């Protein structure tokens, strides 16, 4: 396994993993909320974004998609994917060419769509999700595991825990993922000790994860 990585590149790989996961998880949640807004509960989008500490307003299901994906709020997915792209550019030397290319392709797709005058629809969500899956697939294709891959994986898992805790308060899911996080932490920084989180609160869990990341990336 390749061992050398600067702190900056390690951090970029980690954040790239987080932003990609945030993009994918958000797309799935937006798609689910869109389905409900159509004919069950028009406020489902508001409820979803309140859990993410964002307040949004929209006029119906189609408008919800536009607002959720490209609206002026912290969960704007174009900003999320552009942040993933930026981190990929900086850490490019550690990525397989095809994996890097698929991140650029996804970002370009989002950018081009944002410039179109027409409203987006569910085919956009499907296409974006498909490109995100393609990106994860390409990132997983490397034959020999590099240290870089663990940083990406770590980012993805941390984001999974964070996102899940915000939306569902599902601590059991978080604990399962924490086990995998601890395994990666042991590989990347054997000096960092893991702690039993069974009795930790949601806030304690997030603090514990952040402390670990701070210890790994100097």
């Amino acid at each position, binding site marked *: 396994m390749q*061992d050398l990585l600067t702190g900056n590149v390690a951090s970029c790989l980690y954040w790239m993993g987080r932003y990609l996961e945030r993009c994918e998880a958000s797309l799935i949640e937006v798609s689910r909320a869109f389905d409900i807004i159509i004919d069950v509960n028009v406020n489902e989008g508001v409820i979803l974004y309140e859990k993410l500490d964002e307040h949004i307003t929209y006029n119906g299901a189609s408008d919800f998609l536009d607002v959720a994906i490209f609206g002026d709020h912290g969960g704007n997915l174009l900003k999320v994917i552009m942040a993933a792209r930026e981190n990929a550019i900086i850490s490019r030397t550690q990525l397989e060419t095809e994996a890097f290319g698929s991140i650029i392709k996804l970002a370009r797709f989002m950018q081009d769509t944002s410039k179109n005058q027409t409203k987006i629809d569910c085919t956009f969500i499907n296409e974006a999700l498909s490109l995100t899956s393609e990106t994860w697939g390409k990132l997983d294709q490397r034959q020999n595991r590099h240290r870089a891959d663990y940083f990406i994986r770590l980012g993805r898992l941390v984001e999974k825990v964070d996102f899940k805790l915000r939306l569902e308060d599902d601590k059991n899911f978080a604990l399962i993922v924490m086990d995998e996080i601890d395994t990666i932490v042991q590989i990347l920084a054997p000096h960092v000790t893991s702690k039993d989180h069974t009795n930790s609160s949601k806030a304690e869990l997030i603090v514990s994860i952040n402390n670990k990341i701070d210890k790994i990336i100097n």
Partner: protein
Amino acid sequence: MLKSENAIKEEFWKIFSSQDRQKIKDFRKHMDNFAVNFNLYKDGNFIERSLPFDVIPRIIEKQEFQKIQQGLEQRILALNAFLQDLYTDEKIVKQGLIPREFILQAKGYVKEMRGFTPPKKVRTHINGIDLVKDTKNDEWVILEDNLRVPSGASYPLSIRDKYRKVYPEYFSKLKINPIKQYSSYLKNALDYVNCGGINVVLTPGRFNSAYYEHSYLARIMGAQLVRADELVVIDKKVYFKNYDGQKILVGSIYRRLDDDFLDPKFFEPESLIGVPYLVEAYLAGNVAILNSIGNGVADDKGIYYFVPQMIEYYLGEKPLMRNAPTYLPYFEKDMRYIEEHIDKLVIKDVAEAGGYGVLFGHTMSSIQLEDLKTLIKVNPRRFIAQELIEFYDEECYINDELTPRKADFRAYVVMAEDVKVWECGLTRYAIDAGNYLVNSSQGGGFKDTWVVEL
């Protein structure tokens, strides 16, 4: 043009005309996904820009290319010998071949390097030599030597990588020389002078125009890409700062920034992209820096004039390739010639690069020409004058049609134990018809260069 080269081109066009044009659009899209960028700063703003490229390669017949290889190998050996001499014995100056004043006024001359010899006496490790093919004599002419931080090699490497996969027909029907060996040339150059430790590529960072190239080259040669703050000098040794706090000794640095910014303790104190005390480590012999500090004196446009003489002086050989006819206003005879023929000459400011500071006499008004003459007289060392060389156009596929554009060629020459001239290079074409400036910073594009055997 050689008959054999014509035969190869005919074969190329036969395959090209049988191709579906839609494939070209797909190919461009494919390239876009790999962010092959050459970024620009315009009005103080950073603009991320894909480098325009053309799908029609320049084709050079192998025999013809071998002549270029021999000429450039000779030239780099002479330039390396010149730099070694200039910073140690100064024989060429003492014997009066180059006026001392000329050296002292060269912007790239670093007097603090006097008496210092870099590892294995190699100074010109990775070089880019700009050439054009003159239509008058049908021969390649050298326009410029770039011995500091020549960029561009990653672009033909990137396009070739995709081209082979999208258009395998060309590569099975024509004997096109492979080009992937460039990564091993670079690695050998770094390994050869390595003072013990890892190899790194030092980049000014994400917002440098050639950042794409820095990351690409670091990747293919297996070196770490680092910014200045990711290196530290302790006791005159350079260390790479690993994410876990470990410090790893660095033996070779392929730097992608100019001397002035390399070390704020030695050069420009305001530089935020340099490594403090790096030059101390270099002078102590603990790390190799590629290319060597102070090389700028040898690729000064004024010093270019003397390269044919250097070849004879250091190697005892006649130059195998010729310079563009050049005049130095510093010499009275040349000044007179410039005054008489200024409307037909190309005037270059020696301190400028990237296509800036180039004036074409035939495009200037008589008032402008008079002003220029005055400027040259006041500061003769600042300018050189060259005959305008009519160089060949290359066919380009622009806006769905074939159209000719002026194109030059940058050859890459890498020096380690021996000198290697890469069997490829960067063909740059002007963005507008009739324009002679092909530089990327002037909006020019690039195309692949195929060295083909009959």
